[in-house]
Structure formats: structure tokens, C-alpha cells
């Protein structure tokens, strides 16, 4: 169990990366999409915000995420997961890579064994990201 709260988790929980309000310094043609996601029964409530290009046409969706932030309140697992996910987003940049991220990737990033109850905490950021990407795609 002690593995569950490894240094990495505690570090990302106490010093979450990319934590803050939406990134509002926009370049030409950019916009910000923000999505809230919650685990109501736990009281985890977060918001993810992405800065990206507005879609130019129906089949010209944004190619890259220019900036990502998150904010909110939650347990150590969901906060650390969110922090790690935003780092991954910054690393990958390309939407076609980011949209392929899945539960397995989340668990690998966290590098811990999670019980079924806690997996919901780990995947909350992913759910938020997917919703935000869909919003980013829409006109």
C-alpha cells in the first residue's frame, strides 16, 4: 500500500503542475475551452481548460493543444492524475496523439496499483479531457 502514496503521487498532489485558471492569452485564431468534471460521491470537482485553434472548417479540427490548465479540489489520486496528464499533454502537443490516451496510459503514468473504487479517481482527468477535446472540435 505504501506504494500507493509514493513520492510522485504526494509531490503531484501537493504541487500540482499546470494548476490554475484558464490560459487566456490568446494568439490569432485561438480560443479556450473549459470543461468541469466531478466524482460527485467523493466530492472531487475539477475543471480542465485547453487553449487551441478554432476549427477552420468542419473537417479541419485543431491539430495541437497550445496550453492546458486545470483547477479544482479532489483526492490525492485524482489531483496527481490530473497533474500528470497535463504534463503528458504538454509533452505530446498533437491532438491526434492526445486523443488516444486511455485508462491504461493513466495507470501507467501513476505507476501504482489501484482498486476498482480508486480507478474512478485516476480516470476523472481523462473524462474531462475527452469532453474538452469534443468541445474543441465543435464549431
Amino acid at each position, binding site marked *: *500500500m*505504501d506504494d*500507493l*502514496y509514493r513520492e510522485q503521487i*504526494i509531490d503531484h*498532489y*501537493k504541487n500540482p503542475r499546470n494548476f490554475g485558471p484558464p490560459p487566456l492569452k490568446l494568439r490569432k485564431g485561438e480560443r479556450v475551452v473549459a470543461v468541469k468534471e466531478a466524482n460527485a*460521491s*467523493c*466530492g*472531487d*470537482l475539477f475543471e480542465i481548460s485547453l487553449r487551441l485553434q478554432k476549427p477552420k472548417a468542419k473537417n479541419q479540427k485543431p491539430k495541437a493543444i497550445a496550453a492546458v490548465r486545470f483547477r479544482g*479540489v*479532489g*483526492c*490525492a*489520486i485524482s489531483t496527481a492524475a490530473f497533474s500528470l496528464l497535463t504534463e503528458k499533454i504538454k509533452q505530446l502537443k498533437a491532438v491526434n496523439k492526445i486523443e488516444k490516451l486511455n485508462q491504461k496510459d493513466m495507470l501507467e503514468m501513476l505507476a501504482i496499483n489501484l482498486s476498482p473504487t*480508486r480507478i474512478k*479517481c485516476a480516470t476523472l482527468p481523462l473524462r474531462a479531457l475527452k469532453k474538452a477535446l469534443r468541445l474543441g472540435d465543435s464549431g
Partner: protein
Amino acid sequence: MLDIQKIREDFPILHRKIHGKPFDKTQGKRLVYLDNAATSQKPRQVIEAITNYYQNHNANVHRGIHALGDEATNLYQESRAVVAKFIGAADPNELIFVRNTTEAINLVAYSWGMKYIGRDDVILTTEMEHHSNIVPWQELAGRVGARVEYVRVDEESGELDLEDLERKLELKPKLVAVVQVSNFLGSINEIARISQMVADKTAARVLVDGAQAVPHMPVDVGGLGCDFYAFSGHKMFGPMGIGGLWVRREILEEMPAFMTGGGTISQVSQKRTVFADLPDRFDAGTPNVAGAVGLKAAVEYLTQLGMRNIFEHEQQLVGQAIERLSELSFVKIYGPEDVKDRGGLVAFEVKGVHAHDVAQVLDSEAIAVRSGHHCVMPMHTKLGLAATTRASFAAYNSQDEVDRLVEGLKKVKQVFRI
């Protein structure tokens, strides 16, 4: 005084080790089970009674002539009588076996509520209720055009505001539904006094959620002055899937069947059905006879320990827990400060650490607590909380388990560097 060591020997699961090697329950740490408000463990006497029933006496009840059918029927009826007596019911036919407290309350909402609650009527409940004593009333109100009102709970003391109750009784509710012991705050509501207040001002019926009361203190439904009393078997050393609803006879006689079908009838034709008398009208289908047998064994076990003894023992434990938790600057306790105003449970938060993380760290020390909203979201919302952690005691918990809880919380502090 309870002999804790002797009691613990009766509960096989308490000898389990946790987080040892996989499939080897003899390795790891000794289980500290502090989640009794969620469900209690079972003494071997209860487990054996159920096994014995299936090994030697199992048959369907009521409808048979053969020997086994007779034995099963007698066991079932004996169980009803024993459980009814345990809660102070005058007549075993006033006790309906249900699955659990939630089913009991739903039964009242459907069977009694649909008949007696109408448009613009008020159902009065409280801010501290478990969802099972809120949602069925919201649903009923929605169906019949009534409304639900809530008696205020004081945020500081965790106690019901009886002055607010007095005021809200002016609304002339048809039903007052109240919990006897809060599974979150631990507050004990003075049901007898509340029933009297209700009777003095209104013609309302009183329903009591006794899920956290029956397992932990002597209960006498007559003395409480209420009309409906609901409780769960699995919280009182009994099996899951059995519970009780006590209803005052004159009311029960006028209530239509809840679930209908086999067992509830005296005559069925294609044109019409004549329903059975009590208690059969409320025993639809094959009952949980094994569950009733287990519950009887649980009641006998509790009786042998003595409900007053159990209550005092838990008071001691929760008193120690509150005292020691109060010494931890990073822990905040909810509910009445004074032990004599609360039952044997305490919910708290660790400042800066989410309740789930607290429970996770405690689990690493084999300490079982519950974290979340405990099915009491409205009260959590009122206190500005998303989730809390709760430790709840039973007769087999000991003082050194309180010590282990405190040590576990110190580990939380260490892990999260708070």
C-alpha cells in the same frame, strides 16, 4: 461489563489478517474493523444457525403439510416472535420482515403513504437524515403532490433543533420521519419526546429510522410513542437481506399490501383477489426464512450480552476516540461533543487530506473505516463538506483499536506531510 476477548472469539472474521501475502489470511496485520455502521460482523452462533437451518430444517413455509414444512414454519414464526419482543412490540403480527431499513421505509411510503398522503400535504423529516429516509418521501411527494420539509439541525452541536421542530409542526404534517441515531453525526434524537411533541400539536404519524439504534441500545417501540419503526438485521450481528418494520397494529390493519402475489392472499380468481390478514398480507413470496433464523440468533446473542452493556461499552470507546482525536490538531470532529449525546460512532475530517486518502492510508494499517458522504449528502452539503471519514464501534471493538486508529491518523499526517 463485557468480556471483549471472549466476544471476539465468537467472531471468526476478526481473526483475519489484512494485506498479507495473497490467499494467505494468516499473514499481514490484524484487522481493526471500525465500519460497523455500514455493516456488523457475525458471531459463529448466527452463522451456525443459518447453516443449521439449511442443513436440517429447510423447506418452504406456510403451505406445506410435511414435517420439514412444519419445522421451517415454526422456526420462522419463532423468529418473528423473538425479534418483535426484542424491540418491545406487543404483538408479533405487528412486525413485518423486510430486506432492510430502506425497504421498510419504502413499504410505508407505498402502502401507507399512497393511501393517506395527498395533494398539498406536508411530510416532515430532518436535515440529518440518511437518504433512505429522504428519497422515498420525495418520491411520494412527487407522486401525490405533497411536499417535504426539513427540521433544522444545528451545525455546531449536530443536534436537532427542537424549537424548529415545534415551529414546523405548525405546518400540520401528516407524517414526521426521523432518525433515532444519526449514522453521520452520531446524535441521538429523543424519540419519545419528539413523538409527544408531534401528538400534542398534530395528528401526524411518526416513523423512526432505527438502523443505528437497535444494534446499539435497548429499544422499546411502545415507550417511544412512534407508529412505524424500521431497522436492519445486518447491522445487528444478523445476516444481510433481513430487517424489520414494526407498525402499530391499528395502522397496519388498514394498510394495503405492498408487494402482492403469493403468500399475501386468501383467495384469488381471475376477477378479484381477497388479501390475507396480518402478518401474511405483508409477506409476499417465499420469505427469507434463513435470514429470519439468523436474525433470531443475532437477537439472542445481543440479549445475552445485554443492550445496556453494549451501549455503555460503545460510549466508552467513542468517548476515548473523541478525546484522542481532539488532541490531534489536524483532525476535526463532527457531531455532538458530549459523549452522552451520541451513539458509538464518530465522523471526522483530516485537514488538507481527502477522506478517501485518509481511509486508504488507514486501510494500509488494516483499519477499516468508511469515507464519503455516508448516504447523508444534504447534511454534508450544509456543513460545506464533500466527504468525511467515519469510525463506528461495536461490542467486539477494544480500546487498543482506538489506539490503532489514532496511530493510523498520525501516519496519514506523515504520508501527506501536513
